[in-house]
């Protein structure tokens, strides 16, 4: 096997840029002078300590009083706090009096590390000039370190490297600095050694931000040009729009125009996040802040759009962002069909705030009315599902996740297939294509064999394999449908958690795909249909029927469980009949207890879907697809 430097193999031998810091103070500034502003994002692999570093920067500068501090304070959503991860990028404005005696304004954007939310990272990058690249010095460079630092480089950022968690015994700064140079191609001689936990190195970080990151550029007297970075719904204020001012000045009470659709709005409020909202009167060039303008729906705002004044505005639109595309689809159905309208309501409300999540109504023979929803990835799916169940108290059945297939018909047309249940009649189908990804996996040597086997089993095509020290980096071309479901879980389990993984969508390729149906008690269950590669069908079919046999409780009768392609059964199991379900003793007082129990059971049953008199528990729909090998 070849051994060479990562940076070269990535084909992206990146120049290390040192941007000109000498921004000339062209105007007298009323607000913050441009050269006193620093805008930056914090990027890293998941869990390397971005949010904790943000905490320390906020605390050290006195932005938030010590007694009001809490851990990862920018992760304000319940789901974020519970899972200990960042999902939404967050902006904070920090005032910092540097060692040179000057007062600076720092705008920090904390970004999520998980690959599903990579879109949040890439657009945040467009609003700032620099990045702090955080690497856990006890772990080293991981797959999302690479992915995210390349986003930063693509956005022409100046990058300051931070070696975090130096308080940990396993911390090895020399090794990790070397990795940063070898693997990423960044000069790490000035990397700052930090413990976001103890606060060590935080002052040096603040000084580096001021000294090494460039100030923004912009013309105060030019027509207003602002970038719509993000938007979200607030119950009191309506849609809050996060903007980065490029040129000109935005003031409260002005009328603004969105360049994409010409819509005009009256600005009610302008402010900044410290991190709580603080209203101010105007935002000048280089500044990041928010506006509200009585906008009802997040969908009425387009991230990446250019905002200008209604009159005497600029005509010159910013390049805009590529919209986030859902890649995973699944059906969400209420367990209790009476809750369909509640579900519609919940989905509408969530969509208000999350433009990357798509949905349309769906009906299923087995599950009744529900929604076919599109997500950025499986974590995104889980987050939305959790929120519906928790915040709206609706129990859900989640059907097998599917990717989007391209079905090329004999008449030359192409259909997108989001749901295997909608598979058209094969006699009209010419061929099918499936989405592929480029997966980058970093893994310690000793687990490499297992990772290669996993990728190979999932129909992967190896594209590259290189080493840095004792770690290998493998690049695979994989079908998304083999990855979307449980690839990451499997990867974690075969590498005991030591591998990291990132992927990019790569387009479509033709392959021999078939629809596999599952029949329970001789009735097809459409919510369990999946698209599979023909060569893998028997194996998957067998795995699924075996799983279902364990997942479906015994009934009063025996239940055949089959996997079939068209009319051909490719795997079969029989769930034997239940034999004993009786209460041994039941006397005077037990009638009450028993009645309550049975009535509750009956209510539960009414809620449970009946498939040809077979009750399939809701968790079966997802669990049946998880493969153990």
């Amino acid at each position, binding site marked *: 096997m070849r051994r060479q430097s990562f940076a070269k193999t990535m084909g992206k031998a990146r120049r290390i840029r040192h941007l000109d810091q000498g921004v000339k103070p062209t105007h007298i500034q009323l607000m913050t002078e441009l050269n006193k502003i620093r805008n930056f994002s914090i990027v890293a692999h998941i869990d390397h300590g971005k949010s904790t570093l943000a905490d320390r920067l906020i605390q050290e500068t006195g932005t938030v009083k010590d007694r009001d501090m809490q851990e990862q304070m920018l992760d304000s959503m319940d789901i974020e706090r519970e899972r200990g991860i960042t999902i939404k990028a967050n902006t904070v404005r920090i005032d910092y009096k540097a060692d040179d005696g000057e007062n600076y304004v720092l705008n920090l954007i904390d970004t999520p590390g998980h690959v599903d939310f990579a879109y949040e990272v890439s657009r945040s990058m467009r609003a700032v000039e620099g990045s702090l690249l955080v690497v856990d010095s006890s772990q080293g460079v991981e797959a999302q370190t690479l992915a995210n630092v390349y986003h930063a480089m693509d956005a022409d950022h100046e990058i300051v490297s931070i070696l975090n968690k130096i308080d940990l015994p396993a911390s090895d700064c020399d090794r990790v600095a070397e990795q940063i140079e070898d693997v990423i191609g960044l000069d790490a001689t000035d990397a700052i050694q930090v413990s976001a936990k103890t606060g060590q190195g935080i002052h040096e970080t603040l000084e580096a931000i001021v000294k090494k990151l460039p100030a923004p550029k912009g013309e105060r007297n030019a027509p207003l040009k602002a970038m719509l970075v993000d938007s979200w719904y607030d119950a009191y204020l309506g849609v809050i729009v996060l903007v980065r001012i490029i040129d000109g000045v935005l003031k409260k009470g002005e009328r603004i125009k969105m360049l994409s659709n010409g819509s005009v709005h009256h600005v009610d409020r302008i402010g900044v996040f410290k991190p709580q909202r603080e209203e101010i009167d105007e935002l000048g060039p280089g500044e990041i802040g928010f506006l509200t303008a009585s906008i009802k729906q997040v969908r009425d705002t387009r991230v990446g759009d250019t905002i200008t004044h209604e009159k005497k505005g600029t005509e010159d639109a910013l390049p805009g962002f590529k919209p986030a595309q859902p890649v995973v689809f699944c059906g969400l159905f209420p367990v209790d069909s009476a809750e369909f309208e509640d579900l519609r309501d919940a989905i509408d409300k969530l969509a208000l705030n999350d433009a990357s999540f798509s949905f349309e109504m769906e009906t299923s023979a087995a599950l009744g009315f529900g929604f076919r929803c599109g997500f950025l990835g499986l974590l995104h799916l889980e987050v939305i599902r959790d929120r519906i169940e928790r915040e709206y108290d609706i129990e859900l059945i989640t059907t097998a996740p599917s990717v989007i297939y391209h079905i090329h018909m004999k008449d030359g047309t192409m259909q997108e297939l989001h749901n295997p249940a909608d598979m058209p009649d094969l006699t009209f189908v010419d061929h099918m294509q499936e989405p592929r990804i480029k997966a980058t996996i970093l893994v310690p040597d000793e687990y490499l064999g297992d990772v290669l086997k996993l990728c190979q089993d999932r129909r992967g095509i190896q594209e590259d394999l290189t080493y840095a020290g004792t770690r290998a980096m493998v690049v695979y071309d994989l079908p998304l449908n083999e990855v979307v479901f449980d690839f990451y879980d499997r990867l974690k389990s075969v590498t005991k958690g030591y591998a990291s993984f990132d992927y990019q969508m790569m387009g479509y390729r033709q392959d021999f795909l078939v629809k596999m149906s599952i029949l329970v008690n001789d009735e097809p269950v459409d919510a369990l249909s999946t698209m599979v590669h023909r060569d893998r069908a028997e194996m998957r079919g067998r795995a699924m029927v075996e799983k279902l046999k364990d997942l479906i409780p015994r009934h009063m009768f025996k239940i055949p469980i089959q996997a079939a392609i068209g009319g051909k059964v490719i795997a079969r199991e029989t769930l034997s009949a*239940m034999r*004993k*379900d009786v209460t*041994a003793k*039941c006397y*005077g007082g037990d*009638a009450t207890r028993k*009645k309550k129990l049975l*009535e509750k*059971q009956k209510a539960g049953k009414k809620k449970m879907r009946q498939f040809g008199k077979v009750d399939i528990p809701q968790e079966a729909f997802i669990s049946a697809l998880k493969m153990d090998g």
Partner: protein
Amino acid sequence: MHLQNWLRAALSADWQNGGFGIYVHWPFCQAKCPYCDFNSHVSREIDERRWLNAYLAELDRAAAELPGRVVNAVFFGGGTPSLMHPDTVAAIIERIRKHWPMPNDPEITLEANPGSVEAGRFRGYADGGVTRISMGVQALNDRDLKRLGRIHTVDEAKKAFEIAHSTFERVSFDLIYARQDQTLEDWKKELNEALCLAIDHLSLYQLTIEKGTAFSDRYEKGGLTGLPVEDLAADMYDVTNELCERAGLFGYEVSNYAKVGAESRHNLIYWRYGDYLGIGPGAHGRLTIDGVKYATEHFKMPNAWLENAERGRGEKIRDALSGTDQANEYLIMGLRITEGIDTTRLENLAGAKIDTTALTHLTDLGLIEQSGSHLRTTPQGRLLLNSVIGELIY
């Protein structure tokens, strides 16, 4: 509407289909068995006079609202009623007789623990009016008795049983099977032995891990290994039915076996969904008063009950049961017994037809049998009773 009300009034005597009985609960035992979730307590000091007065006060109170009944059967249950002084038992029976007439050959059962049996006491119970003994033998080998936390040996149990039989014509005993490490063969042997001892009635319960018991704690923590899996337990049940039937004891209820005519009349009142007065700590009752059927429940803790009962208010809960409630209770109880239920009675209680799709489904599976308005479970159906009821419940 009017017609329906009239109909309901006429049907208010529904309980008469099951008869009327009295259950007296004695809540004390010498030791608490680790599997037991009955309302039983261990107490050193029991002022039996006070207790007697409380029972009598409760009987007096009940008599006032239940005039004109015939008491078909009385049952002293527990706990361990064989710890009661015979005079206490006699006084309670006497008070019952004072308030209500009884048939010539009343069934008055008393539960006994073989660990607390003396010949003299048994004579006393008989003199006081007790006609039947139900004894908790539980197992016929000492290792298992120990594992069940019982205070007696097999020999002691057999002796106690003989003493009882020398005094009473009708003596039944209980066994718990499907125990830890019990094989099908073990159980067959033990059951055959039991059938040799048996007179005319046996209660054979599969061990149930009840919530809140010591066994349940151990089970949750992964202890209590070697309990039979579902299939073995089912085989054990099948074998039990077979061997009992061969010995002339017919399974007339899920866990009860008797010679024809020797069934527990008192327990049949429950299963035929008749009326029963329950007195004593935690005792439940079903009473039809002025055409309304009530579910009653007494205070559960011995002292709470005692304090309240002395003032004639031992009853803590009295809920009127809707027609649907009654129909469901009738289903739950009635399908336990081999004789089954009358669907006309059921539909009258519910005010709605029985689910015929479910009936067909269950008949096809061989779990129930139907002829006319008579519906009963088959032995396989009885083994799946919870699921069967689940399909039919209103």
